[in-house]
């Protein structure tokens, strides 16, 4: 036990047969999981010690998930702890529980060797949880047991069925109810999905009924019916009294639990927001202060931060990111970062990006670069998709240029925009006046295949209006 701090924490693990106690114990002690399981089973025959010990660990030791959640509450951000200090941490109590469980585990498992957390991977044929029918196998074992008992009876062995059946009923009912509790702890209480709560309640009630019936049969076996009846009545009365006394406490406890859980969710959210703000906004503000002399840099930083924050606040993370507007916006952001001039994107309608759109996106990027570089001010980008046809307009307010004055060897406009669009069946038009320049790109709806006959139709607008 002296080396306990170096051990992996004792948690119930997910590779489980019943509740993951043995595998958790095995990892904690650094023993092969099968050895632990065998010891546990053998101990169960020694007057039921194993069962009691198992049940105790089941109750006291948290699952790996619960434990991780508890650890995970501390956010990574350096400023977050100040925000997320939860009132009345219960970590200390939990810590002692750990130590106690650890001590007991050490005692039971024998002197553990100090192997590091070698996850003694059991041979595949023993990984019960990987077998999809673990429950069925357990059921089969139970049925075999019943069959064995029946056979023994047939063979004349005196089996005390009168005690055995109620006892089995009690045990079975209790374990059904307990498993439900564990299940609830793992899923229902945590994220409150409540999806299978009805089934959970059914199981709980069934378990309870089994236990009650078992106890009834056991008790009634020893006395007369009437006596049993009286006893039952008395116990119900006592139970009622106890419930009456304890109910307010129970309700209060439940309400506190609810409040605490809601608080914890809030804390987690706040911690996440704090961490995000720290990583993004505060860093940017620090940068802006250091670069205060350089207006260009300040504007660029502010724009980039604005964009980032906006997407974090307003974008639906579940949204499919493969839309054309997303790509155009991404390209605009890139140009903005590169050259420092704002690029405003307005989009109407949207479509999924197909392979053919690559040309449109590239041409848009080139046009934005030109507009930002030569226009020298804000660039307006408008994307409209209707009926699958996509159009992009890129407008700046620069001094404008004459396409025919652009030297032949400058490929930016002629090749990257007009040529590219024409090659891919789209169109490109450039309108330039002294008030600014607008590049108009059009791309037809995706067609099953590029059919030559359509070609003239599609090229025509470009050649007709290709020059200003």
């Amino acid at each position, binding site marked *: 036990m002296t080396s306990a701090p170096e051990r992996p924490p004792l948690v119930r693990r997910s590779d489980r047969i019943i509740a993951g106690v043995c595998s958790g114990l095995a990892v904690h002690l650094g023993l092969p999981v099968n050895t632990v399981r065998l010891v546990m089973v053998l101990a169960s025959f020694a007057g039921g010690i194993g069962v009691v010990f198992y049940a105790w660990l089941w109750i006291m030791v948290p699952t790996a998930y619960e434990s991780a959640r508890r650890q995970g509450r501390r956010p990574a951000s350096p400023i977050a702890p100040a925000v997320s200090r939860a009132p009345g941490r219960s970590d200390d109590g939990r810590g002692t529980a750990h130590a106690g469980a650890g001590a007991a585990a050490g005692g039971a498992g024998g002197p553990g060797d100090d192997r590091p957390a070698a996850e003694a991977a059991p041979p595949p044929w023993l990984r019960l949880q990987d077998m999809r029918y673990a429950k069925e196998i357990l059921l089969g074992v139970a049925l075999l047991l019943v069959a064995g008992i029946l056979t023994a009876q047939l063979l004349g062995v005196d089996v005390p069925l009168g005690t055995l059946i109620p006892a089995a009923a009690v045990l079975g009912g209790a374990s059904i109810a307990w498993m439900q509790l564990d299940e609830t702890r793992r899923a229902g209480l945590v994220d409150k999905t409540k999806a299978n709560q009805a089934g959970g309640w059914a199981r709980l009630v069934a378990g309870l009924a089994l236990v009650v019936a078992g106890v009834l049969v056991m008790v009634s076996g020893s006395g007369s019916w009437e006596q049993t009846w009286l006893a039952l009545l008395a116990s119900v009365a006592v139970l009622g009294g106890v419930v009456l006394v304890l109910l307010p406490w129970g309700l209060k406890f439940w309400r506190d639990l609810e409040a605490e859980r809601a608080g914890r969710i809030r804390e987690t959210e706040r911690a996440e927001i704090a961490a995000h703000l720290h990583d993004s906004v505060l860093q940017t503000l620090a940068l802006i202060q250091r670069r205060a002399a350089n207006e260009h840099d300040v504007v660029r930083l502010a724009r980039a931060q604005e964009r980032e924050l*906006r997407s974090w606040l*307003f*974008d*639906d993370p579940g*949204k499919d990111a493969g839309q054309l507007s997303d790509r155009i916006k991404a390209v605009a952001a890139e140009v903005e970062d590169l050259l420092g001039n*704002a690029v*405003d994107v*307005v*989009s*109407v*309608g949207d479509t999924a990006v197909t392979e053919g759109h690559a040309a449109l996106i590239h041409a848009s990027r080139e046009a934005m670069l030109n507009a930002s570089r030569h226009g020298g*001010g*804000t660039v*307006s980008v*408008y994307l*409209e998709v*209707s009926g699958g046809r996509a159009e992009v*307009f890129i*407008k700046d*307010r620069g001094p404008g240029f004459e396409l025919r004055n652009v030297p032949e060897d400058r490929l930016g406009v002629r090749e990257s925009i007009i040529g590219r669009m024409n090659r891919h069946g789209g169109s490109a038009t450039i309108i330039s006046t002294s*008030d600014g320049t*607008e590049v108009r790109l059009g791309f037809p709806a995706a067609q099953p295949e590029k059919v030559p006959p359509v070609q003239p139709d599609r090229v025509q607008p470009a050649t007709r209006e290709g020059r200003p």
Partner: protein
Amino acid sequence: MNSMQGTGNGTPGAGKSVRVVLVDDHAIFRSGLKADLDPSIQVVGEAATVEQAIAVIAQERPDVVLLDVHLPGGLGGGGREVIAGSAALLSTTRFLALSVSDAAEDVVAVIRAGARGYVTKTISGADITDAVYRVAGGDAVFSPRLAGFVLDAFGTAPADIADDELDRLSARELEVMRLIARGYSYKEVAKELFISIKTVETHVSAVLRKLQLSSRHELTKWAAERRLL
């Protein structure tokens, strides 16, 4: 960010001073905006919450209210609630919505409440001055983004005869909206379509009216769906 494309073609109201109330919960933004506005614009009042705004507007009866979409106080309705609370003055006092938010539901909600336009807070001093005069003169102020919202909400197909007049944009209105969304100023729109600026303004006002009055099912559905944009 040239959210407001009115630069240079505004009709600064012939020397007549415009009285303005600023409503924004950020004092820094209010003082910055005050400094940016043209000296011919007279700021007669400021407010930081819904209640203050309604009181100040009722008391001062300004020509134009520059109204932040997101405001504390009231029932949580922000700018929309201020307009609703000042409904009696809507014929004389015009509201211009200001926002950092691009969220369609905020913008459309405040426009439908009665605002005459919407601009983003990154707008330049000259542009906001121009927008104030334009709104004071009874015109609508559409930023490219608002025009984009409108096109999204009403669809990009022109109206059929059979349609309810309020539920569709006419072919001309669509053209105007498209050009504004592309970053054209009113003057440039007029030049492009060979119409007068006055006609452009008429079209924009008509679109604003449709945006405010249309009970088009798609519009409300769209606003709800596009909560995140």
